[in-house]
């Protein structure tokens, strides 16, 4: 029982790191463009599916760490230029939501036509085990996945806080008119943020691909998780995002030891609703 609980909690912690990264992508896009990006789940699937093809054709999973984000970035630039730049900013939330819903249809169906609907797996690229205590061991790849996600989050924080472009992004999301008056190229910043957010989703897919079965619709559930994490965290708070991702996945991990996994998922969302009810402005104030 204790062993199962520890393993479940470890899995949950790994998952929290990955989904915190995906959620940060969602936050960036919402904070900048006021779009609830429903296509975020499909972008996550793009990452995972490009990983599948990298592994199948180039023989090594490692290529996908670079290629997945690059493919996603290219797709995101096309999406932005084709749809979002038409003065979407300032439209009501439901309207922009429909646009991203349409994007989700297009992306998912394209993936479906390329990849097919059947779930597929890729072999574990790092098949070693890390000893924990006694005879219990833990998958080395999962530990790598958590470390990688945390490193990306760290890089993102540094980028936003220390570089000029990061400063521009923060300024534009606070007040785009003033930012524009200060000489910041606001349209380019919008596009860059959209691409950056999409790439974070795709990276989530790349990291998750060896741990799960890959389908074009794999992003449906993670989208809701990411969205609730973003809201509970309070928009734009990075420590808040990590904390709320931890709350969601750890409570899910604990419940799934004792209950049916589907029910556990519902219960962990109920915990999040409780947190949201207690602190509607977000769990962290900074």
């Amino acid at each position, binding site marked *: 029982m204790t062993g199962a609980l520890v393993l479940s909690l470890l899995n949950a912690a790994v998952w929290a790191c990955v989904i915190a990264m995906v959620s940060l992508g969602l936050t960036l896009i919402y904070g900048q463009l006021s779009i609830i990006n429903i296509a975020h789940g499909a972008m996550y699937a793009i990452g995972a599916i490009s990983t599948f093809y990298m592994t199948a054709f180039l023989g090594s999973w490692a290529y996908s760490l670079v290629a997945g984000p690059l493919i996603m970035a290219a797709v995101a630039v096309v999406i932005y230029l084709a749809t979002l730049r038409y003065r979407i900013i300032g439209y009501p939330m439901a309207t922009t939501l429909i646009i991203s819903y349409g994007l989700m249809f297009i992306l998912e169906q394209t993936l479906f036509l390329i990849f097919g609907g059947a779930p597929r797996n890729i072999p574990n690229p790092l098949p070693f085990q890390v000893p924990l205590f006694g005879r219990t061991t833990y998958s080395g790849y999962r530990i790598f996945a958590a470390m990688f996600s945390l490193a990306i989050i760290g890089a993102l924080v540094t980028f936003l806080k220390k570089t000029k472009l990061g400063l521009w992004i923060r300024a534009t999301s606070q007040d785009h008119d003033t930012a524009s008056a200060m000489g910041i190229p606001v349209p380019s910043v919008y596009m860059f943020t959209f691409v950056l957010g999409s790439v974070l989703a795709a990276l989530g897919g790349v990291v998750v691909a060896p741990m799960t079965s890959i389908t074009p619709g794999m992003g449906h559930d993670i989208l809701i998780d990411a969205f609730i994490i973003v809201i509970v965290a309070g928009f734009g708070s990075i420590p808040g995002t990590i904390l709320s991702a931890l709350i969601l996945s750890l409570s899910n991990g604990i419940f799934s030891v004792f209950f049916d996994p589907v029910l556990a998922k519902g219960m962990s*969302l109920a915990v999040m609703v409780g947190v949201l009810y207690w602190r509607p402005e977000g769990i962290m104030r900074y």
Partner: protein
Amino acid sequence: MSDKTVYKPIAFCAVVAFLVAAPHFLSLFYKQLLIEILIFGLFSLGFDIIYGFTGLLNFGMSVFFGLGGYMVLLPILHWHAGIWTALLICIAACSLFSLCYGCLIARFKSHYFVAFTIVVSMIFFYIAMGQRPITGSDEGLTIKVPALDFGFFTLSLYNTMTKYYFVLAICGLVFLIVRRFFRTPYGRAIVAVRENEARAQLIGYNTRNLKIASFTLSGVVAGIAGGLYVLHLGFTSANSFYWLWTARSVWWTITGGAGTLVGAFIGPAVLVFFEDLISTWNPDFYLIIMGAIMILMITLAPDGIAGLFKLRFSRREK
């Protein structure tokens, strides 16, 4: 006399005449499609009440749709209830549920409201998925739809013609009730909340109660739609709680024109028809084409199809 006052009754009579006469000249397939359009229109009407008229983006409409469906299905399955009893149970359960739900979340605004509703709908989805003995999980439950009992004679709903008129009657009734409601002073006050909540408060309205009233009405309307859909298919599953249903109602309403009652029906009428046309023409690319249509429609007509007409009429009036 402006154009608007002339056109409106004419258009209204034409639509009613078409809807009443439609099953006599349409093929069976299109009759079924029209039934679905009416039900989806009712579902969108539920969303339109809360979004278009009250200004709250409820992204958890699937809760009511799924709940209404199960509240019709379960009494018929377990107690062999008649259709009227089942519908009454559905309406009672949905109004009680949405009233309590509304009281809990009336204090939230904008994206917090969106988040709250979406998560509640997902909680219902996961719970329904987990309770296989009660809900049938994703395989769902099937019922034999009982006959319509009018006391001295009965009509079978397996006759498409009867089913069509039954659905049309209920949709028409609900539509007229909602239309009447938004012309009463109380209904007007709800629209005032959408326009400017602070000002409505200053005038002396209890905006919280207004929002709860609108939320309840929207929940009941969507619940009835869910119930009718179950009577139409004789089947429901836990998937009726999934957020994609909500997204569809949002899409239909916005395309039709949020904030207009007819818009809620125009949206599904156009889109479900298109969807059918394109999916039979090219099943592989149909979702891609639908996605493109969605984006184009929203970009070209952000106020929806009804919004286009409104614009034209109001320009002429000047």
